[in-house]
């Protein structure tokens, strides 16, 4: 469970709720465009310690079969994961 991207963007009068109350975890935009660099995980080096997952401010690193992967839709490229990784399994690559 986590907030996820939706297709429908309420904008018109009839789609806007009566009160300032709406479905929780409703996302309509990504954060990918914020990034200059992206973390790339080398799963052959990863030991599954989950420190990158734990320390990610955006929660974009997720567990996948004892390894980890990145949700690039929402990664901002801060580089905390790369610094926290003790085995050097994460490198930052420039976005093209």
């Amino acid at each position, binding site marked *: 469970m986590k907030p996820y991207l939706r297709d429908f963007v309420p904008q018109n*009068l009839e789609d806007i709720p009566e*009160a*300032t109350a709406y479905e929780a975890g409703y996302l309509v935009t990504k954060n990918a465009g914020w990034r200059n660099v992206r973390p790339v995980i080398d799963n052959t080096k990863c030991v599954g310690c989950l420190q990158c997952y734990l320390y990610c401010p955006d929660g974009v690193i997720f567990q996948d079969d004892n390894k980890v992967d990145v949700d690039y839709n929402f990664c901002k490229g801060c580089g905390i994961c790369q610094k926290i990784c003790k085995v050097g399994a994460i490198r930052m690559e420039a976005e093209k």
Partner: protein
Amino acid sequence: MSKHFLSGNDAFAYGIRLARPKVISAYPITPQTIVVERLSEMVEDKSLDSQFIHVESEHSAMSCAMGASSVGARTFTATSSQGLLYMAECLTYASGGRFPIVMMNANRSTALPWNIYGDQRDSLSLLDSGWIQAYAENAQEALDLALLSYYVAEHKEVQTPFMANLDGFVLTHTYEVVDVPTQEQADEFLPPYETDNKMDLQNPRNLAFSAGPATNTAFKYKEHNGLLNAKKIISEAETRFNEIFGRQYTGLIEKYKSDDADYIIITLGSISGLVKQTVDELREQGEKVGLVRIRYMRPFPNEEISQAVQNAKAAAVLEKDISFGNEGTVYTNVNSALKKFGVEVPVSNYIGGLGGRNISEVEIKTIFSSLKTNPSGVNFLGIGVNDSE
């Protein structure tokens, strides 16, 4: 129904008990204190099943009420004067969030100079905060408003907080015989609060969010419509109220012998009692005078007031308020209403009762007689040569 000898504050507290709020948060301020003292006693003696929260300020009183309302609990708070101003930030928050909180406000002068007595500058200065504003005339109406307020505020087409105003001391502390309905009657009138505008563990929601320029106007338009819808729902509520309790209220205004009147005083709150008495006396002397009592300042009775005074020769707005640098706020609102409906009756403004100053019968008679000769301008009662004391 049983008869009790109650002050306005007591009566309101009895009404609130009948409405069964789940959470009450309040901070003491004269002359509101008795209503929250009574409610805390009712919680203690278990005649009211409610969480009574001893908050440390009025800002927290309203913030706490919003928290409780945001999870779907019926809530109540009460304040006055400086306290109302101190929570002002939370007033627009509650209306924007469409939290149907009910608050009793004991109308009191605002500093400076310090003064604990009644006038209506506190609530009238917050007319634009998005709340329904009702003004009671007597203790019976106060009790009844406590029940009516939740019906209106919580209605799906309204979803707007409700401020019930009682004149400080004159109404809050004056004892009258009041009919107190039974709990069964109250329950029949007022069902438990149901809403979608809440945080729900089964259906999580994000509340009280930001809305940027693209959607902000839409939210504000809906808020405006909610307040306008209150007009219809007040009428519906009063019809239903009469069916159950046998008392019929008259919507946004009350007309007293005004239908054929040449000269009309337009006012609000407890002073209406004395104006009615004066109207009766003058009528006995053959004077065609009348009263229009504004019961609701928001939504504002534009059409009702215009219709009520359209055949008069002149009218005066008597109010315990002044918008400095302009005129009485009620006067401004009334003039705007008449203009909109093309009513060209001359209207003058009388500012009276500030800081609890007595408004006498002689002064009311003077207002009526002035309407015959020179109905104009903004006049302050009690500081000029016509001081009746």
